[in-house]
């Protein structure tokens, strides 16, 4: 066999710069990437196969593990798909709670992204801060659902339990705290000229190709295209809440970072509004015996805006007590394979991990 000319460089699966258990095989010439190939499957647990063996409610234990950094949108999307099949109404209060949970999830995921982004740029101070502060949001989740990471809180027909006493106050206090901290983060990361130099003009997703490549979420908004499921196809009570969808021109890492930076502010705004507007009443449109629950036959497609972009669930039911087929499409599915392989060639080795973080590549979402 003839030896290749370009050097092969394995970014992962065991590599400090990879965003999860996956591998990007780079062919490099000098320190410039010539070609990149994403290899996944290291985290394949056959969720979609296993869900076919679980009943409708048991699926939730698996669902939230689809993507660790942000489990809640998965639950919500699945719940909404099942609700559509089952024609199940959701109480107004549950919708508000769901919005709060979603935005909290967005914030904690932002904190993780923030840590990854600055960590991959070589700044180790802010990751410590933001992951530390993320614990406060996880505390809120713990109070609400009993779990730090995996919540299994959103169920078809509402949420599993009502807000605990004093939870809203605590949430508001946490929001105030985090808002204050965000200013400090910005001073360190976004005002830093070195970070700006590193991020500007690197990892550009071209605007004219973005939609065709299947780019979604903040990455798409970073190219200047305003696209957000919360606005385009409002679910829950997002149409009743006033918030902005930030966009930036350029399509580079810097633009995406700015979009995310603004988005987390909007999340705080949404949470405050949702808490203020929250109606009373029921929080759960009960399923009588979830273990024996059957859902009418049909297919449903539900999508939700997660922190990385649109998450879609295609749920098929044959009328039985188990889902016939659930297919999940996460944002990373396209970002991590097609987009990554297309934008990495020509980049510097130093920027590979940087770009991975910026695209929000989350391998369990790709292979499930």
């Amino acid at each position, binding site marked *: 066999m003839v030896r290749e000319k370009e*050097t*092969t*460089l394995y970014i992962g699966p065991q*590599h*400090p*710069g990879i965003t999860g258990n996956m591998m990007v095989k780079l062919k*490099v010439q000098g*320190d410039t990437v010539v070609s990149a190939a994403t290899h996944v499957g290291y985290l394949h647990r056959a969720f979609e196969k296993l869900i076919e063996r679980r009943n409708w409610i048991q699926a939730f234990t698996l669902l939230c593990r689809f993507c660790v950094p942000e489990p809640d949108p998965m639950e919500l999307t699945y719940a909404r798909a099942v609700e559509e099949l089952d024609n199940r109404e959701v109480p107004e209060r549950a919708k508000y709670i769901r919005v709060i949970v979603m935005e909290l999830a967005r914030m904690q995921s932002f904190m993780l992204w923030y840590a990854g982004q*600055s*960590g*991959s*740029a*070589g*700044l*180790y*101070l802010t990751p*410590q*801060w933001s992951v*530390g502060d993320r614990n406060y949001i996880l505390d809120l989740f713990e109070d609400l659902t009993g779990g730090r990471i995996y919540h299994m809180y959103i169920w078809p027909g509402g949420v599993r339990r009502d807000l605990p006493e004093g939870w809203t106050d605590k949430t508001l206090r946490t929001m105030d705290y985090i808002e204050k901290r965000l200013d400090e983060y910005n001073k*360190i*990361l976004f005002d*830093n000229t*070195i*970070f700006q*130099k*590193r991020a500007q003009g690197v990892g550009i997703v071209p605007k004219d190709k973005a939609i065709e490549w299947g780019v979604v979420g903040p990455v798409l908004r970073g190219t200047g295209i305003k696209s957000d499921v919360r606005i385009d196809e409002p679910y829950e009570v997002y149409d009743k809440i006033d918030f902005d969808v930030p966009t930036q021109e350029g399509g580079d890492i810097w633009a995406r970072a700015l979009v995310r930076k603004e988005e987390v502010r909007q999340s705080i705004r949404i949470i405050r509004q949702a808490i203020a507007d929250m109606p009373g009443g029921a929080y759960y449109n009960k399923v009588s015996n979830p273990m024996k629950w059957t859902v009418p036959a049909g297919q449903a497609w539900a999508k939700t805006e997660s922190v990385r972009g649109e998450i879609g669930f295609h749920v098929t039911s044959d009328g039985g007590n188990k889902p016939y087929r659930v297919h999940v499409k996460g944002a990373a599915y396209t970002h991590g394979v097609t987009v990554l392989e297309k934008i990495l060639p020509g980049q*510097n*080795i*130093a*920027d*590979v*991990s*940087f770009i991975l973080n910026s695209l929000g590549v989350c391998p369990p979402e790709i292979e499930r």
Partner: protein
Amino acid sequence: MEDLGLKIFGAILTTIMAFTVGMTYGGIVRKLTARVQNRYGPPVYQNFLDLLKLQSKKTNIAHGFMGHMAPVWIIIAAVTVLMFIPILNGNLWFPNLSFHGDLIFLLYMMVFGSLGMALGAGQTGNPNSAIGVTRGLSQMVGYEIPFVLALVALMIQFQTTSVQDLTQVQHETGVWNAFANPFAFLAALLASLGMFRYSPFDIVGAPAELASGPVSEFGGKYLGTMMSGGAVFAFIKLTLYVHLFFGGAGNPDDSGILATLAGIGILLVKTFLLYMIPVFYGWINPRYRTEQAIRYFWGWPTALGIVGVLWAVFFN
């Protein structure tokens, strides 16, 4: 022969001191970093434990002779350079060989270790190591320019190339070189940021990019020995800077035990304060790309260095 005995004793004492101080500074930096990061942090002596652990690993892997030699080279460079820099100005206890080598020698001897490291890393065959080495060498070309400019400025300003004499000059005039030639000092200070390899110049072993760069394949006793060498080197760089720019430490007229201890105390204070500069800078900055780092050194630091040389030529 009494003289020789004293010399050997002094040399061993110097080495132990440099090693201990270097390791402890590393530990203190880890602790302080942790505090800045809202953490409690490891104990100050954590580095010693790490070293001990690495040395007590039961199996070790070398990728051939150069891989085996790399730590040796680093220690050779570290200890040899240490022998040739004055620890205390004119003190009888630590004269070592400081009269027998000058700045140019020191500059080149410091590269010796890097070369050994580079060769060892090269033999492992890990592409990450090779990339790390190329980055390190490229960056070295970057920061050596302002550093040498600063040194040349000092040398021509005081008409000497010996560290010992430069220290003595400061001791006699009472003016630190940092003030005698501020431009050269600034150039050297900025160059020192690259030399200490804290952020934003930690491009050699950038974890998220290259695993850990040149040391990717080194573990156990090899990594431990390298760590010791690195600790000594940290002390060397700091002491050199202190002697070049901060008036050194120690009283050449008094080599009594008290005066010596006082000298060491002053040296420790000065070196520690100096060490904090790259560390502080590193806390709040992300990493440069290699070419950005090189460009940085060829920008303001070099300009300052040139001004420093002109200052030395025209104002003295």
